[in-house]
């Protein structure tokens, strides 16, 4: 695979995710209104010129809760 093709596919992958992530965040923020604002009431990703939306729900793997706690603690301290 050429570098340019790999870069392009990486960009497409990122765009695919952003479509899905936007929907997920909107669903959390306000059940209806913002969701429709971000995605458009009837708009499909293809209609907007984007690629297909990311699959939902997203895959999850078990995390070590203690590691999650430590990482969160350190993240807070670094950010704040």
């Amino acid at each position, binding site marked *: 695979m050429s570098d340019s093709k790999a870069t392009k596919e990486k960009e497409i992958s990122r765009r695919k995710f952003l479509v899905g992530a936007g929907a997920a965040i909107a669903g959390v923020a306000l059940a209806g209104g913002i969701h429709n604002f971000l995605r458009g009431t009837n708009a499909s990703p293809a209609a907007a010129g984007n690629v297909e939306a990311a699959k939902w729900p997203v895959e*999850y793997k078990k995390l070590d809760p203690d590691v999650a706690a430590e*990482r*969160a603690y350190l993240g807070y301290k670094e950010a*704040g």
Partner: protein
Amino acid sequence: MGYLAEEVGYPFNQLPLEAFTSFQAGIEGWGSICGALIAPIQLIGMIAEGEEKSAMVNELIAFYTQHPFPEYQTGEFDLPRVAVGSTLCHVSVTRWMNETGMGPRSRPERKERCAGLTADVCKFTAQMLNKYLEGTFKPGEYTAPAVAGECLVCHGEMEPFAHGKENCLDCHEDHR
């Protein structure tokens, strides 16, 4: 989020962590919802669906209001633990400071408390999501206070109107 990106990869590794920094201090200092809850709620919404998704979010928020924070402590401080009764940063931080005497907000103990609280919330979320993945998640360990439902029996339909699941009596007089 960074840990999840490392363990799972896509799509979590596409989320810029910088996008979450505005949630600090109840969203840029407004004292609104505690920023420690935002990313976990988003994660639950990305991973789970249906009634279990709602149940986990409810469980997380009820946990937040009832758990005496901070459980996670490094030993640098010996911080008192306080259950704050609200998801609002304004209430959470001020109640902890007033009950412990560890104010003002600029005090290092306060920052350490919020860092520990963030760790506790993320640990609880990971435990719940692990159970969800195993198919063993059962809601009900933490639930909304009954008083909210009692108040809304009337005030859901009559003035003064209200809605919510937190403890109404934190801010409003009990006239039952």
